[in-house]
């Protein structure tokens, strides 16, 4: 019986373009796994932050302060109508220059926001702009009369928003939110451009070191993203089902 690792070693020897190096070389497998872990962290952070941005932005748009509304509108237009990759480069290279630095060892100056930090900020604001619009549409779908019923019971504006409007808006928003978050997870690969050691970055470095592993690593990339997005979609669908109100909507 041939061992699992030996099988792939032999496969690589016979077919030089199909070197599944991550199945037998622990060091390369470690790089891929580290990249995957970074991608997961990046995705979770961006998903959470972008949802927070969406909720806050949609709430601000509902206030009567014109200046705040204009700021939110400007933010949406900017982030929605420019490429995320350009935003990422802008945040990292242009804004990165102005971030204060600190010196942990007394020798080198380290910026307080790392490239990972900038990737999280930039991608969250990118996806957040869409989330604001998604939540706003959800809020607008809540009938004025439902809001009035709440206010005529003596609920304050804030209570009406948190107890009635938002819970209903959220349910309307989930399908669109689902799409946007899937896009966000895929867009985290663009952090590659500012050397964030996420999955794509690590994969490319592996195949730069071992050109024979290029096809298998690419294959792995596809499989991993399908699984990653699959997990997200599964989770969102489960959430949507749990939030479903009997007799409401469909």
């Amino acid at each position, binding site marked *: 019986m041939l061992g699992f690792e030996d099988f792939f070693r032999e496969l690589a020897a016979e077919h030089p373009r199909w070197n599944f190096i991550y199945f037998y070389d622990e060091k390369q497998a470690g790089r891929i796994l580290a990249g995957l872990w970074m991608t997961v962290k990046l995705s979770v952070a961006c998903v959470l932050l972008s949802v927070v941005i969406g909720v806050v932005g949609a709430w601000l748009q509902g206030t009567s302060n014109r200046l705040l509304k204009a700021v939110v509108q400007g933010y949406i237009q900017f982030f929605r109508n420019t490429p995320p990759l350009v935003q990422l480069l802008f945040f990292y290279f242009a804004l990165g220059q102005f971030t204060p630095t600190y010196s942990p060892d007394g020798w080198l100056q380290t910026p307080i926001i790392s490239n990972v930090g900038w990737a999280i900020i930039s991608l969250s604001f990118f996806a957040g702009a869409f989330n604001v619009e998604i939540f706003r549409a959800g809020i607008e779908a809540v*009938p004025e*009369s*439902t809001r*009035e*019923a*709440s*206010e*005529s*019971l*003596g*609920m*304050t504006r804030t*209570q009406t928003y948190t*107890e*009635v409007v938002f*819970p*209903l808006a959220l*349910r309307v928003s989930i399908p669109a939110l689902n799409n946007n978050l899937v896009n966000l997870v895929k867009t985290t690969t663009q952090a590659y451009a500012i050397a964030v050691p996420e999955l794509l970055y690590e994969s490319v470095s592996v195949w730069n070191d071992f050109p024979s592993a290029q096809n298998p690593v690419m294959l792995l990339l596809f499989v991993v993203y399908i699984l990653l997005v699959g997990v997200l979609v599964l989770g969102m669908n489960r959430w949507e089902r749990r939030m479903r*109100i*009997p*007799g*409401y909507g469909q």
Partner: protein
Amino acid sequence: MTDPALTDPALTDPALTDRATAWTPDQPIVAIKDVHKSFGDLEVLKGVSLEVRKGEVVCIIGPSGSGKSTLIRCINALTDIQGGSITVEGQEVHAKNLDKLALRKKVGMVFQQYNLFPHKTALQNVMMAPIKVLKEDRSEVEGRARALLRKVRLEGKEDSYPGELSGGQQQRVAIARSLAMRPDIMLFDEVTAALDPETVKEVLVTIKDLAREGMTCILVTHEMGFAREIADHIYFTDRGVIVEHGPPATFFDQASDPRTREFLSQIL
């Protein structure tokens, strides 16, 4: 300064604003005086006056678009007015410094379209405001909410969502939801207009029970038989004015204004 709202002594004189405490049950609980209301160029209320005493049941009838909903919505400050005065228990509703919370604790409102919270069960709908607004103890509120649902004959439907209830059942939950705030006055705006004929009755019975117990009720309704039976006083509105009013017996049988007679002849 010429803004009448600022010069009206009822709004600026602290001695007069304090009338709230001076109000006694022998005075009108709701007093509407010469109320004017416009939406842009459209004048919807053109000087409406109306008085309701504690425990009275007042019905407002009139053709569509005559301003009935607008009038009733002014009473709990869901819309503002451009002129005149509305007091509830002596407190001016359209004062700049109005305590909306205090007003809405006193005035309950039931809408034509029920407007329940679709993501909450019947019981949760009834419990929400007493817990959030009155900050009352949850278990105490729950006991009261269950009792109210029994009172509107919805025992067993506590855990149903609005989407799982019929129109008539939803409307009764909405009535219970308003009653949970222990209001002094209930406003009903065509609460049976969206219901099919069989379920109209169950809602009317609920309102009749309330009226018998002495709740002050202001109802907009198209149910003439019902109005005749329970109303102490009937107001007829047309194009933003009150054309005629009186106790049901005189109103229905001896209406003098041609507009009232025409309306009644179409409906009855």
